[in-house]
């Protein structure tokens, strides 16, 4: 299993707010070492690898994760879902899960 995290880097070199929060979330829970690669989406650079990957996978916001294994490629836009799905952690409550996703990413409701 190989896990890639796509993060957005702002013009000033900092992570976008949510990327920073999610990185900290992973570090605090001891999961940061489970991330095999970080790919950057550079603000104002539509050719940067993270933007290109987001376009290919139909993901609009950072951060997100791409997990590759024998079953192929799975995209996670929710860090909680990644953790419970891939790191064998107990399921989060539906409220926690709901607060972890961007409602604007969910078309059709």
């Amino acid at each position: 299993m190989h896990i890639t995290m796509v993060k957005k880097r702002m013009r000033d070199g900092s992570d976008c707010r949510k990327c920073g929060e999610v990185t900290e979330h992973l570090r605090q829970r001891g999961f940061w070492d489970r991330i095999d690669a970080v790919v950057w989406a550079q603000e104002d650079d539509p050719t940067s690898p993270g933007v290109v990957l987001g376009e290919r996978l139909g993901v609009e916001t950072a951060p997100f994760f791409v997990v590759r294994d024998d079953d192929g490629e799975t995209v996670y836009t929710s860090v909680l879902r990644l953790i419970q799905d891939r790191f064998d952690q107990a399921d989060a409550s539906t409220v926690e899960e709901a607060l972890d996703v961007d409602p604007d990413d969910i078309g059709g409701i």
Partner: protein
Amino acid sequence: MSVDPKTIAALAAEYATRDPRDIVEFAIREYGPDIGISFSGAESVVLIDMASKIGGKFRVFSLDTGRLHPETLQFIDRVRRHYAIRIDVYYPQAEALEKLVREKGLFSFYTDGHKECCAIRKVEPLLRALKPLNAWITGQRKDQSPGTRSAIPVVQLDPTFNSAKHRLVKFNPLANWTGKQLWAYIREREVPYNPLFERGYSSIGCEPCTRPTNPSQHEREGRWWWEDETAKECGLHAGNVTKFQDGNL
């Protein structure tokens, strides 16, 4: 039956130019009865009309956020009676909603943005609605939001909720239809519709967060109009977002 996740992209390409009814038929055939139509009380009624005429087993669900227009609630019930179907209506979790209102009041979205309120009133019930399903059908269209929905495929692995533990496929049969085509279908087949559309609403959501638009405005301008779309810091296309000016893209 269900679709092999590895073949979804090829399937999307194959069905991209097909009639939405073909896509609905395929979806029900492959996933019925473990497939649900998401009915928001607006144009997605077209999907119910198509599915009812096709037949087969499918579910219909709605999310009652507690802030919908009375007209929308009445319409949901009218559709239930018109098509003689069961509609599973999901409500926000009381404890989480009471906490939000207690701490931030009833209109926190005007100051804090709509996302927390949407998460509790809409996303959490959606998670429960999707739990027993292997696939769902939505009414989203590319022309609803050129900035963010321009690449919607007619079928995809759900980009938000699919996981290794819960494979979830999302069908968007109307993705390539324009609003004009959709309304032609509604009129030609005398499909019931939400009366708010006659009062200038082009996008119908919660009452405090939706307002009528004029003909020169794009429909998404009727939603969360007090928020700056370009301020979505984590958007991967933020540098490419064209700001609305004078009601035009």
